[in-house]
């Protein structure tokens, strides 16, 4: 992996109906970091993520991936560098078979057939889904769909992986498999999630969004001990950080 950092400067965005989604959001993310973006529903997490690969373009401010600013012209370059995994895997798996879905990205990158085959098979191997390659998406389980969705993005060899709510709807096993998979990757990781335990396992840095603004940006350990901050931003402490119920009374920090 090369070292493409992400630099977000004073990003502002409003929806067509006028609601402000993001207001003067700024952050710098170094290559190789694993950052979690957390916040209540409607805080702007998904909107921010959609800016990272140019699905949405800023109304004000700018975003640079490495040295390249995200504009209409640089979209195809950006999308080779930033791989986005959407919330709903069904939206991501639109080809007749798993293999064709994973090969879709490399095909659009204009690679040779041999290279496409190599990348597709490697990506499937990385997510432990090689045996599923000929299956149509509707035959897959929730966990399998998620893994294949990640493979569809891995096959493009991006430097940065952006995932929107990756553990939603997964059972314990599926979730565990996903966490091991993500731990094994050395891409720059950006996760929007409600799953705070996942954050503790994977991410060293947390950005808290509240009503379109950054409320906090720092090490996970610090943020999760700041109970006032968590309360203000309508969040709760991860379960594993709360004290033993017996020692701390009823155990729920209000």
């Amino acid at each position, binding site marked *: 992996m090369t070292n493409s950092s992400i630099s977000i400067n004073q990003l502002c965005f409003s929806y067509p109906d006028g609601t402000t989604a993001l207001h003067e959001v700024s952050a710098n993310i170094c290559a190789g970091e694993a950052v979690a973006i957390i916040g209540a529903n409607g805080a702007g997490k998904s909107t921010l993520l*959609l800016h990272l*690969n140019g*699905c949405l373009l800023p109304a004000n401010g700018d975003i640079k991936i490495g040295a390249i600013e995200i504009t209409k012209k640089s*979209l*195809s370059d950006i*999308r*080779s560098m930033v*791989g*986005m995994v*959407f919330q*709903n895997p*069904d*939206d*991501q798996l*639109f*080809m*007749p*078979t798993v293999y064709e879905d994973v090969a*879709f*990205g490399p*095909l*659009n*990158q204009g690679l040779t057939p041999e290279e496409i085959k190599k990348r597709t098979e490697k990506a499937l191997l990385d997510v432990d889904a090689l045996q599923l390659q000929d299956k*149509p*998406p*509707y035959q897959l389980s929730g966990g399998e769909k998620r893994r294949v969705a990640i493979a*569809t*993005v891995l096959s*493009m060899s991006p430097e940065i992986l952006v995932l929107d709510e990756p553990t939603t709807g997964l059972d314990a096993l599926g979730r565990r498999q996903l966490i091991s998979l993500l731990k094994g990757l050395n891409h720059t990781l950006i996760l929007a999630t409600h799953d705070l335990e996942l954050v503790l396992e994977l991410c060293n840095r947390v950005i808290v969004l509240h009503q379109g603004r950054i409320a906090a940006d720092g090490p996970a350990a610090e943020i999760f001990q700041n109970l006032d901050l968590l309360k203000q931003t309508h969040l709760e402490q991860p379960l594993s950080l709360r004290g033993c119920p017996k020692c701390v009374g009823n155990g729920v920090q209000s």
Partner: protein
Amino acid sequence: MQNIEGTLLNFRRIDLLASENSFIHRIDARVKILVTLFFIFSVISFNNHEISALLPFFIFPAAVSTLGKIPFSYILKKLILILPFAVMIGIFNPLFDRHVLVSIGSIEITGGWISLLSIIIRTMLTVSAGVILVCVTGFNTICQALNQMGIPQPFTTQLFFLYRYIFVLAEEVCSISNAYRLRSVTGRRMGISTFTPLLGNLLLRTWERAERIHLSMLSRGYNGVFNKIPVTPLNRTDLKFLFGWSFIFIVLRFNNLSVFLGRLITGIVE
């Protein structure tokens, strides 16, 4: 509600049958499509009082379904579903055509009944051919073949998407109708005033889903063009299948095999 679960099961069943590996499955899809169309064309080209010459045509569906491991009961079920519709139109034939064509002893059979029987036989032949085609080929392969045969890409690509998302949409309709059933105390069918917001919401969600799919396509470098599927050459087996069956259909079309066999047997007996 129509049987949504049944519809989904039907799709899955056909997918399963199509994923088998048999001699027929390995024949090129383009050949299978052409042979099926030629078969149907030959069947419907007979005049409307023909019966005996049609019967030998059953060889084709019988052979292909057996070699293709398609259960006879499955084809029969499909025929039973479709025949009433054919009879519904065909039943007018005996009413309007009273011209006596055949007398067996004292029983006079009018042209109308003969043409009705002909319609029934045609239906059985054409429907079974269509069912068998999709069961030994699979929908996605058929779409690829259509593209290779010259059907424009916007249409075939769109067919792929349609098929892919039928499962998703059908499941959504399933849950909507369950939700309705659980909350409609009277148990009656919904009226237009309930149907409208129900369908409207489904349409909005579907549209938003399509927008998200498009976003995810863009995120993976989609630039409006799908790569054309390369045209694979036909091999000897494919060609033999194509020309062999075509020859058989032509022979059967212009020679009444039933009558021929009948004469042969009665000739031997005498």
